[in-house]
């Protein structure tokens, strides 16, 4: 009876974890793959894996960094498997960079501001596309998910110095891409 209650509480806890972090995990995977279906599948796999190991989560790190770590590993596994299965499509539904740049809330911006913003977004996408896997992961974790260097180091398993070096190179690439548009 006590066990059943504990399980129910744990399940309820996990439901709230999914509700709280699903969008963020999905956004990270979407930014990494530009493939909505793939991002959804990997997000589901991530929460499935997290659910299976929920009892062993000791809370040494935040739930988000733990989930991010699972998501990154799943993504790596996915690309590794795809490389081996060369006859399968590598980017099944990856959206074109220009289409990916179309997503901008209209807000209070003028048409000109929106056009400028769209152009900037396209340049950042182009730079992100050309980053190495590690640089891209670090860049997205820092500037999209707003993790700090320590958290990124924990999530990626790199040292803080390495994270900083990757981040610096990624920023240089984005800077260069934005500079070329002028």
């Amino acid at each position, binding site marked *: 009876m006590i066990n059943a209650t504990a399980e129910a509480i744990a399940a309820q806890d996990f439901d709230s974890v999914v509700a709280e972090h*699903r*969008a963020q995990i*999905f*956004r990270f995977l*979407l*930014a990494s793959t530009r493939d*909505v*279906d793939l*991002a*959804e*599948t990997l997000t589901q796999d991530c929460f499935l894996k997290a659910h299976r190991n929920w009892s062993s989560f000791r809370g040494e790190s935040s739930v988000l960094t733990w989930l991010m770590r699972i998501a990154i590993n799943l993504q790596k596994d996915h690309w590794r498997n795809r490389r081996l*299965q060369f*006859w*399968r*499509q590598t980017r*099944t539904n990856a959206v074109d960079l220009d289409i*990916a*740049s179309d*997503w*901008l*809330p209209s807000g209070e911006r003028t048409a000109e501001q929106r056009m400028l*913003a769209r152009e*900037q*977004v396209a*340049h*950042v*996408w182009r730079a*992100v596309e050309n980053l190495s896997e590690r640089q891209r992961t670090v860049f997205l974790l*820092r*500037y*999209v998910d*707003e993790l*700090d*260097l320590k958290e990124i180091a924990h999530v990626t398993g790199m040292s803080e110095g390495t994270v*900083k070096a990757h*981040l*610096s190179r990624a*920023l240089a690439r*984005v*800077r260069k891409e*934005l500079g070329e548009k002028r």
Partner: protein
Amino acid sequence: MNRMDENPKLVQGNDDLELEPELREAIGNFKTSLSAWTEEAISRPRKLTSRARVNWALATKWALGCAVFIGTVSGGVYENHHQQVAAKAEAARLAEQQRELTAQRAREEADLMARVDNDIAREVPSALEPLASLMEENQGTGN
């Protein structure tokens, strides 16, 4: 105005990586765009898709490529083997022909020699005929 501009953690650059205003604005717009895309994607009903679809065109190309390669290689190997067998048969035939020719020559030579011996034996100069007849007589008596 985007969320990044409001976030002191990123504006201050706690990682010592300074972001100039334009770069900050561009990354902020990128994040806003990505979040809008995420919201739209999450709220839409999900289609049922197979997780890993086989790219049949690519698979067919690979299969055809492999078939052509195997065909070319095995064709070459067969042709080479066929040529080797034909060459061996031809060599055997030539050797046999050579043997027959040699044997025939040997026979002809033997015949010729026998004829020559015979001719030499028969054509005895007239001055030696008495001697020859004596030899024949001796041969007849066994002496």
